[in-house]
Each structure stands twice: as C-alpha cells, then as structure tokens.
C-alpha cells in the first residue's frame, strides 16, 4: 500500500489545492482582470482624450491619479474572492467531501494562496496598464515609486484578504459575508475615521482603519512624502439665514511608511490567528 502519511505531512496537497482553486475561480479572474484593465485604460488614456483633462505634469502625479480606483478594485476583489474561503465549505457542505481527504488547514492555506495569486494578478494587470501608459506619455525610465506603490498594494490586499478570511471563518453564508465585509471596508472604516477626526482632530490618528492604511498606496508616489500628514482645511462665508463664520475640518492624509507597514502586518497576523482559532472550533 502507498505511504499515505506523506500526503498529509507534505506540502503537495497544498500545491494541488492552489492550482485547483485557481481553476475554480478563473471566471472571476477573467471578469475582474477585464474590469481592472478597462478602468486603467479609461483613467490613463480615454480621459486624456478630452481637452478639459490636462495630462499631469509628472509621471508620479499621472500614476497617483490613475491609482484612485485601486482601493475599490482591491476591496471588491478581496471580498468576492475570499468571502467563501472557509464558510462555503460549511454552508455548501462541500467540506464533507474534502475534509476527510486533506487536513483542513492545508485546504484553507491552499485556497487562500490560490485566491491571493489571482487577486495579485488582477492588481498587477492594473499596474501594468498604468505603467504602460506612463511610459507612453512620459517616456522612460518608469518612476521607481510605482513599484513601491505596487508593493504596498500587495501588502494591502493581503491585509484585506486576511480580514475577509476572518469573517469567513465564523459567518454562515457566503453572500452575507460579502455584503458585511464590503459595508465595513467601504463605509464602516471611513465613517469611523471621520467621526474620530471630528472629535479628536490631530490628537488621534485612525491607525485602526484599513481604509486609512490603504492611503499609503497613493501617498508613497508623492515626492516628498506628505508632511504634515494631518491637514486642516478652513473656509468662511455667510450660511443660510445670515448665519456665518469660519469653518475648518481636518483630514489625516496618510500613515507614516513605517507605521503603515507595521500595522498592515499586524492586521495580517492578527486576522489569521483569529481566523485559525475560530476555524479550529468550527464543526460541520
């Protein structure tokens, strides 16, 4: 009889699961890659065809404006690719077929890596198109900062995916997980950031917020790096009914590179540990 021990102690099942997962999700990959490329082309090429839109002065500014949509792409793709990673095995009861065959952690690691490769490929396609147009408009060499930005985008995607995986480890339904994580990531963090800034202004930096940490992707393109990182806008005038006065509001533009990187790593590790603990307790 074959030595079955090796199949569970070795990494081979993880590799097979990665490839299987990539095959399984290929329709989503095609869709998101098409959408990303279309958005990149729209922002970098089609908008420039309109006379009102002046081309940015520098390649870095061009990349910065082109990357305005990257957070949406990463967010939607992370939610749609990772929401079902754990809960679908329970919800759709596919776990009854696969769990006796493969160690359940190896299955989830394989699925995670498979999906991560796909989401990173989508972002890579976006950056590639942007880089191509950057080269087309401004010539070489390509600004090195876009590679830094790409690195942060990958780190941000890993943090987002670990956050979504955490939700997937205890939620019952895939669709509900998608909706809840999208609401939290799209609105929840932004609303919390605004409330915190309204009350504490520059006293409290919203470092808990994934959305805020994601600002590193575009701010790293700026040279010099934004300083101060907290900016206050003031404006004055007459309000309705003769009410008037000076108003001001502040925004935290970006975390520092060191703090941002550290906190993204903390998010990744923390979410994975929590997800693993919850997954361990979960039974079909």
């Amino acid at each position, binding site marked *: 009889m074959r030595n*079955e021990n090796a*199949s569970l102690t070795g990494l081979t099942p993880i590799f097979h699961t990665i490839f299987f997962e990539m095959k399984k999700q290929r329709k989503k990959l095609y869709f998101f890659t098409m959408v990303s490329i279309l958005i990149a082309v729209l922002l970098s090429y089609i908008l420039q065809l309109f006379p009102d839109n002046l081309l940015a002065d520098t390649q870095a500014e061009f990349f910065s404006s082109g990357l305005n949509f990257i957070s949406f792409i990463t967010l939607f793709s992370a939610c749609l690719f990772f929401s079902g990673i754990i809960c679908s095995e329970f919800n*759709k009861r596919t*776990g*009854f*077929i696969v769990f*006796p065959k*493969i160690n359940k952690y190896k299955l989830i690691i394989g699925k995670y890596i498979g999906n991560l490769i796909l989401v990173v490929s989508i972002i890579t396609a976006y950056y590639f198109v942007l880089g191509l147009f950057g080269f087309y408009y401004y010539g070489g060499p390509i600004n090195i900062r876009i590679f830094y930005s790409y690195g942060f985008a990958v780190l941000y995607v890993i943090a987002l995916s670990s956050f979504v995986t955490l939700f997937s480890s205890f939620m019952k339904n895939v669709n509900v997980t998608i909706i809840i994580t999208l609401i939290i990531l799209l609105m929840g963090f932004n609303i919390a950031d605004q409330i915190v800034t309204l009350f504490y202004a520059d006293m409290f930096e919203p470092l808990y917020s994934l959305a805020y940490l994601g600002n590193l992707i575009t701010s790293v393109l700026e040279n010099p790096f934004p300083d101060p990182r907290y900016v206050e806008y003031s404006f004055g005038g007459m309000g309705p009914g003769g009410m008037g006065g000076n108003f001001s509001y502040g925004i935290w533009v970006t975390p520092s590179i060191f703090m941002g990187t550290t906190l993204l790593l903390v998010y990744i590790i923390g979410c994975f540990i929590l997800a693993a603990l919850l997954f361990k307790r979960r039974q079909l």
Partner: protein
Amino acid sequence: MSEIVIKLENLTKNFGNFTAVDSINLEVCRGETIGLVGPNGAGKTTTIKMIAKILRPNSGKILIRTNGSELKDLQHVSSTVSQIGFLIDIPNFYNMTAYQLLKYFGKIQRYPKDKLDNRIDELLAFFKLSEWKFERVRNFSKGMVQKLGIIQAILHDPDIIILDEPQTGLDPLARIEIRKYLRELQSLGKTIFIASHMLYEISEICDKIALINYGKIIGFDTVENLALTLKTSELNCLLLEPLDAEKLPPLLNRIDERLSPFLDQNLDPKISKIPILYNPEHQGLKLYFNGKNESKGEILKILVNEFESDFTVISFTQPKTSQLERVYSKLVENSTPEGPIKLKGDDIKNEK
C-alpha cells in the same frame, strides 16, 4: 478471527444537552461488511462524521488499524483518515467537471499520477458516467451526484470504505450496480461500513448489522442471530405449479395440522392472523414458524415428503429483509433514550 480495524470505545457526542451518540462500543474486523441501521436522528451520520474527523467526540475513542500496524487513536494520527474512503451525507461538490474533481481528489490523496486517469475512466465507466466526464456537476441529476460521491470515496482504493446512505437518490438499476460493485469490493477483502435506511440493501450486502437508536447500539450481530430475538420467523416456499383454488382450504388445513408443532400458533396479529398463507401471485406459501433452526429442517422434510402429491417445492428460503425489518421494528420500538427495554425471553445481542 480476523484483526479488528475499527474499534469504537464508549464514543459519545453531545450537541448542547442533546446526546447524539451515547457511549457506543463497536468492533469492525478486516474484510467485514457492517451495516449501521437506525431511524432518522439515531446517530448514524454523527458516528461516521466522528470517524472522518469532521466532528470531535466529547468522550470515548476511535481506534483505527492501518497497514497492519497496531490500533491507534484516531485523534493522534493525522494520516489515518486518508486510508479510508468516505461518503458522508448527500454529497455536495464544487461546481467543476467530474474529471477535474476526481483528478483533484486523486492527487491530494496521492494516488499514483500515471494510473489516476485510468482509474477515473474505469470508475466513471463502471458507474455509467463516462459521457459526463467533462460536464459540470451542476448539470448532474441527484442520482449521478450520488454515484460521483461513491466514486470519490473509492477512487484512491482505500482498505476501509465508509458509506452514509449510498443508495439515496439512485434508480433501481443504479442500486443493483452499486450492490454489484460493493460485492466486488468485498471479494477484494475491503472492509465496508454502510449506514442506511434501506434494509433490503443492508441485508443483501452486510455480514453484520449494527442497529442504532437514540445514539446507542441496540443490537449488533448477523441478521440470522439478530432474528433469534424474534419469537416468529418467516419461511417462503415457492411451488412449481399454482395450487387449485378449490382444493386450497382443505390443503392448508392439512399443512397446518401437520406442521403445527413447528408453527407459531400465537402469532402476533400485526404480522399475520394465520401462520400459513398462500400467495397465488408469487405461487408460494408463507409460513410463520417458531424460529428454531431444527424446525426449518423438519418443515422442509414434511413439505417435500408428505405433500409430494399436492405440490412440488422448488425453493425454500428464509427472507433476510423481512426478518431484518421485524428485528429493526422490534428493537427500535422497544428502545428508549435510557436504553433497550429488556423483553421477556429476549436475548438481545448487544454491545460486546
């Protein structure tokens, strides 16, 4: 006696205050085919899920022997499950093609790469799914999904096969095919453990039956031995030619008189009002006797020798299924969450 390959020791599983499996003890020997029979919610699937390590027992042990080694506690052996083929519940697959799924399952269980495609083709052909090899599972009928579920359980050629309701959703022909395949596996010395409601399938295939209710094993033995707990047993005699309707009542009276020492004269009216019945459609006699083996021989002798001029017996059988049905009804009806009710004269062969 052959070696024990699966041993359940005081296996217990609670879901909150509800005890789904209650201190089960069971031993399965190599090459045996065991049927796990019980009503809905009796604890069959929960027991299987614990063997598959999908559920953790609250107490007790599952010991498994693989590769001729000693019995090992399943919780401490990560590899053991891969040496067992499982079909748990109604299978749900990822929406991929049958080939992609089976290829993946074969690979993660390290079935030799060069033989995997042949193995897939062979099994798909046996279960008449070859034409569906490259179709997505969502296009499959319920029966086809069930067949694919059985294929994935045996794909990696495991020594122990555990099937939960393998006949669910299958048409009669497919059931016959699966029964045939299970017999082939039996002949190869595989150990098979089947949980099912279908008493006919179980009685046809299994060497031993474990009856389970309220999470407890209420009977575990061969159908014949379990039937000894019954006061009444059944015999079917097929006749060469149909009996003349006019001569039937006196003939039945004569048979009754002659066989009366062996027949069950205090027959439970729920079973039948009289101990001898003639079924013209099946052209046979149904006799309810006292269940003793020696009585069977006497009955056959009398029917063959003394009624030679009236009819010719061409087949004389004790139907396993109806016996099992009655054993099942009796044991299940008489069991409570606290355990089986001990009936007068009962000899329930239970928990070794």
